[in-house]
């Protein structure tokens, strides 16, 4: 395990890819860097070597995959930034959200349940598009908040987005069932 405690692996995910620690991120560039690093560390590149090398390659490739997945997804990236800043502790337990947001989500949820019960794809498609639009706006606000080090506000937006992403997944799952 010696090699796996190396400094390269102790650094945060942004440093691993040599990227600035911020919410705004060039995803294409991240992907290109990810592929370049995987091309060096992936187990397939070490399959003919000793077992210890293979193990090391697996640990590295696993780590790089995790780093990539975390940074690629804007919600995970934001949570990771909050975590690095020491502000993520209350994300799972704190469910306080503005009343206005909650009422709106409640209505959306009912609309989804109704469309699911009827088994009609069209209203679900409409809901999917509306949610997608809301989510895009929230992400823009989240990036602003993080850039301004407004962690409290960022945490609130992350909580809301977790809620919205879950709902849009439900819409997609319902669509899947109908279209099957």
């Amino acid at each position, binding site marked *: 395990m010696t090699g796996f405690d190396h400094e*390269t692996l102790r650094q945060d995910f942004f440093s691993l*890819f040599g990227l600035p620690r911020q919410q705004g991120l060039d995803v294409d560039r991240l992907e290109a860097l990810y592929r370049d690093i995987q091309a060096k560390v992936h187990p397939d590149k070490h*399959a003919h*070597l000793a077992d210890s090398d293979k193990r*090391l390659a*697996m640990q590295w490739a696993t780590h790089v995959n995790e780093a990539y*997945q975390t940074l690629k997804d804007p919600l995970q990236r934001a949570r990771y930034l909050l975590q690095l800043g020491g502000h993520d502790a209350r994300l799972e337990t704190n469910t306080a959200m503005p009343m206005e947001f909650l009422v709106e989500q409640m209505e959306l949820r009912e609309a989804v349940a109704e469309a699911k019960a009827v088994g009609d794809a069209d209203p679900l498609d409409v809901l999917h598009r509306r949610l997608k639009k809301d989510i895009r706006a929230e992400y823009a606000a989240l990036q602003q908040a993080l850039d301004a080090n407004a962690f409290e506000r960022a945490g609130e937006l992350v909580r809301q987005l977790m809620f919205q992403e879950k709902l849009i997944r439900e819409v997609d799952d319902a669509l*899947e069932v109908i279209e099957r």
Partner: protein
Amino acid sequence: MALLQLSEPGQSAAPHEHRLAVGIDLGTTNSLVATVRSGMSVVLSDELGRSLLPSVVRYAAAGPVEVGYSAEAHQASDPKNTLVSVKRFMGRGLLDIAHSESLPYDFIETEGMIKLKTAQGVKSPVEVSADILRALKERAEAALGGALTGAVITVPAYFDDAQRQATKDAARLAGLSVLRLLNEPTAAAIAYGLDNAAEGIYAVYDLGGGTFDISILKLSKGVFQVLSTGGDSALGGDDFDHRVFCWVIEQAQLSPVSLGDARLLQMRAREAKEYLTQHGEAPITAKLSTGEFVDLKLTTEIFAEISRTLVQKTLGPTKKALRDAGLAPEDIKGVVMVGGATRMPQIQHAVEAFFGKEPLNNLDPDKVVALGAATQANLLAGNRAAGDDWLLLDVIPLSLGIETMGGLVEKIIPRNSTIPVARAQEFTTFKDGQTALALQVVQGERELVSDCRSLARFELRGIPPMVAGAARIRVTFQVDADGLLSVSAREQTSGHEAHIEVKPSYGLSDDEITSMLKDGYTHASDDAFRRALREAQVEAQRLVEAVQSALKDDAHLLSMLERAHIDSCLTKLQSVLIGDDRRAIDAAMDALSKGTAEFAARRMNQGVRRALAGKKVDEVNL
């Protein structure tokens, strides 16, 4: 990116050190073995020039185990002892098998994986598959004139952990060193992508004898990245045969037929299906043991009608895979068709209609998987030539989860995660002084444990006794590049490593494998001792070469003292390598591995730094 030319470990292998590596397509109906010769991937044929090996094994009361065509010839005359499509039983229980009542075998009622009674004793599907693999191994060694370094064996992308593990166990029984388990559609994508220098997003539609896979891949600058995969590991050409068989029974108004007659009609059904790929109608004639005659005509239209729901069943997973990748049918640049069953016109039409473009059929759908696997095997064995620096990034097909309170599943690794992947989870004890903990690991997408497939029960022992809730046990679930799960656990407060006992739900335990291996040695003329020695020598030689090559490239990473230590370990291994003391070889290998661990770590760091540096230099140049 041409600014920094980095040599890869192993690239410096001289031509005379070419390692013999093969790709094996272990199919439901047919199996193949291929290798790379003079830079070209080729399928290896038997002495009669036949490239396919029917995946049929016969365990007759008298005589040796027969594999392939000779076994296939006895399907109708000796149905109980002639095992076909055994891949459908890998890692499966009796209840998982569709139409098991119409199969001629004597299944044994056991927990876990199916077992079959034959004239040569009880056989697990793993042993039957091992016999097929052994025949392919012998074919390859005869053709290549030497012992194989290793093999890449393909599995359906939608195979779960139990089915993958069963395949790897079969290879171990056959004496094959597995370089990698490779997903069949991914293997096909490699063969297609490298042949056509393809770039963009492709779908691979792979309908084999017993399994269906759909994979969506992004091909870009030598990287084959699987974005998502889906499928049905119990849907294939066999099911179309079965539909025809049922139609024949119904049309000819046959009363229940004997096992031999059933097998005969199934063969006729398959022949008719194959005939229909080129013709508008197929005659089905048979003389049954009862004296009854069957004389029917199956038209393309009737066949399409009776198999319509099967064709539809492939489109569900296709939609799901596209959705998981966040793509629509029109985003797909090309659909590569793989597997003999894609020759059926109704499949071609359905795929064309769904994707809105003509599918790509320019590869032999029977051979493409083996050819791709051979290319990958060649690369993994370290036979790397210039331009061979492509990379494969594959995914896990089904989510992994653990059972929580109330029979619910908590997902720990979601489907379509790029492998290798790991996830750590903390658990605590429920009672004072509790020293053991059990985890039920399942695979599947549903929320209830009862709707998912149980993979294994992991029992963690040796947790230091503490008050309830005080222990913090960190369990790490690691899925490796073969898509196989391993679990490790550590008690955080004491740093105590917990012992883990694995009880696979549908697999063979390590003890069972060991005893099967032993049986194999006593039955075969191959001397177990000599064989183990030879394997150790080959392994040791490989390690020596790997270390020498690493030293040649990166000796600057070592201090003089460290270098001297590695050199002495190397000399020691080289001196015992030629002898016949296996324990000395193992010990010297162990010492060299340990002695080079830190070196390996530094080289890896250097590789990553250079990858990033290369990128930055590249950008300055833009």
